[in-house]
């Protein structure tokens, strides 16, 4: 063939870049794509959006400096198309890619391809991601770092016979999880041997379908725990800080419904221990950029490591509000090689923040997704209210992606005040044309047990929705 150099001129811009990026490609959609555009604008960095035909015409795309259609609506043909995204990055002259959450954000192969193409992946190194992104290897990493873990299988489940044996040692109930999983896909609880056998089969099938990886493992099922996760960020100079914890115990089918910081009723000593544990793990794993260390906390405030989310999370705004930081900007800075802008002592946790995910789902019909056109929208506002959303009156919610249409976040001096402000804001929130989870949000915020901080990860399903 002939020399590629002939045609390389147009990507020169990408090659000889200065310490900070001039252009970043955003390999995501919806509210997180908009969130990243906002961070880049504030850093003076140009943005390149990529979109599927299902998102063509969405307003947030017009806020990017450039936008490329990368395929049809199906995510597998667009937002998961590594080749097209890399190519869009090259032709647009972007020097880095922010993957947001979901889609390719925890795909180590994608991170590796970026590196090979001399594109900075805004996230952990593919090695760290591969190690901590995989639940089994993450678990052993946690053990090495002296981070308490839930007793369970050391590796993947190979055959039912071995599984049944291990289960007997751990003791039922047993939780079956997909090694590549997330968002509850490929998860099963088994209370006896027959449930275990069937559960392993179902989980493996589900995992294969969802993640193209049928590997599953088992662990002791801690009954009615709280979900507490620690936000941390590391630069490439060996500095790691935590930004305190978030409590996401209000869940439905492993989907978080409310996230808050700080965690209610968690003793100061435990907060410090759990945050220190997360930092230990990040350091041990040589982790860089932002990540979240998820724990379950039992009634005696014992905490067990569950997994690391090697990416920014949906609920990052609650941490931004209580710590007065901008995590997306920080991600970009450390990805560009800058030192962390803070030392640990700079990170104070002030007041209380709560986030509600607004999903276009029908709470009266088993939370079935409700795509359609938003015919009327009155967003709440005023003191203490932050809204991260890409939707507007007339926006048509595409049926191809997850149902979250925005996040309502409040920050007030106390938890009680935050709950009051959130209820006030939810009462102002008018959205017509689609059903949303707003009624459920009101129900949760008015619930005496939630107000008392006396809930666990099964509370919504077992108690609140059972009422």
């Amino acid at each position: 063939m002939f020399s590629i150099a002939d045609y390389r001129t147009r990507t020169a811009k990408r090659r000889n870049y200065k310490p900070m990026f001039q252009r970043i490609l955003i390999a995501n959609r919806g509210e997180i794509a908009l969130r990243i555009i906002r961070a880049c604008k504030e850093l003076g960095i140009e943005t390149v959006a990529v979109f599927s035909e299902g998102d063509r015409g969405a307003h947030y795309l017009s806020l990017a400096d450039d936008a490329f259609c990368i395929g049809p609506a199906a995510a597998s043909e667009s937002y998961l198309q590594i080749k097209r995204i890399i190519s869009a990055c090259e032709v647009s002259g972007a020097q880095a890619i922010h993957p947001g959450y979901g889609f390719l954000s925890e795909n180590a192969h994608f991170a590796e391809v970026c590196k090979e193409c001399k594109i900075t992946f805004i996230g952990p190194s593919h090695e760290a991601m591969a190690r901590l992104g995989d639940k089994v290897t993450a678990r052993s990493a946690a053990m090495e770092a002296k981070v308490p873990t839930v007793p369970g299988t050391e590796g993947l489940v190979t055959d039912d016979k071995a599984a049944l044996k291990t289960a007997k040692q751990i003791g039922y109930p047993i939780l079956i999880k997909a090694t590549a999983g997330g968002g509850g896909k490929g998860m099963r609880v088994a209370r006896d041997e027959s449930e275990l056998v069937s559960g392993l089969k179902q989980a493996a099938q589900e995992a294969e379908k969802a993640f193209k990886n049928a590997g599953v493992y088992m662990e002791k099922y801690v009954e009615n725990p709280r979900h507490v996760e620690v936000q941390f960020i590391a630069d490439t100079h060996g500095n790691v800080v935590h930004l305190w914890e978030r409590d996401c115990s209000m869940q439905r089918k492993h989907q978080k419904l409310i996230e808050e910081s700080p965690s209610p009723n968690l003793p100061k000593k435990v907060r410090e221990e759990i945050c220190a544990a997360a930092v230990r793990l990040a350091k041990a794993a040589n982790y860089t950029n932002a990540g979240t260390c998820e724990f379950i906390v039992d009634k005696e405030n014992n905490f067990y490591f569950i997994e690391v989310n090697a990416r920014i999370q949906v609920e990052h705004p609650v941490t931004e509000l209580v710590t007065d930081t901008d995590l997306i900007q920080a991600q970009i800075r450390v990805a560009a090689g800058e030192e962390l802008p803070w030392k640990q002592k700079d990170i104070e946790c002030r007041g209380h923040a709560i986030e509600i995910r607004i999903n276009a789902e029908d709470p009266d019909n088993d939370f079935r997704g409700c795509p359609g056109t938003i015919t009327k929208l009155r967003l709440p506002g005023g003191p203490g209210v932050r809204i991260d959303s890409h939707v507007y009156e007339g926006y048509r919610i595409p049926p191809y992606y997850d149902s979250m249409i925005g996040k309502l976040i409040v920050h007030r001096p106390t938890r009680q005040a935050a709950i009051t402000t959130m209820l006030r804001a939810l009462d102002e929130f008018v959205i017509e044309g689609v059903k949303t989870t707003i009624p459920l949000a009101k129900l949760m915020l008015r619930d005496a047990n939630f107000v008392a901080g006396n809930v666990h990860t099964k509370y919504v399903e077992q108690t609140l929705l059972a009422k």
Partner: protein
Amino acid sequence: MADKTQEAGSFDLERVRELIEMMEAHGVTEVNLRKADERWVLRRGPAEVINMMASGGYAPPNYATAPQAPAPQAAAPITPAVPAVADGPVIKSPTVGTFYLSPTPTEPPFVKVGSAVKPDTVVCLIEAMKVFNQIPAEISGTITEILVNNGDAVEYGQPLFRVKT
């Protein structure tokens, strides 16, 4: 004139016009008159309603226009030229990358305006991730227009050539 047309057994358009104007003036949507063997049926909707229907979509009529409005604007900078799509078949880009008309800068282009193409005729290269993909026409016909320039970045689905079949 009225009588004349009556005799002629035909319709009195003047009186139909009169009725239509009446309907319009009073926002009447339907008139259905029957007498003996004679029958008149007239229907109309207020202009707004007609527009709404036209631009229908899923949205309820009285909002149908709003949802449509943002799309064209926001899409404008990022949508391949609509007219191209409009008149006649086009060869679209199957991927994102850099468009090249010739195998090398020094060689002649794969096709020119006027070139005849078959489905398997290579019409251009699109480079993605250092790989040069040969793009076949996938239809038969004659190239009538080349819609992008050599070296341009193209997105998925972007029209590259217009073809007369």
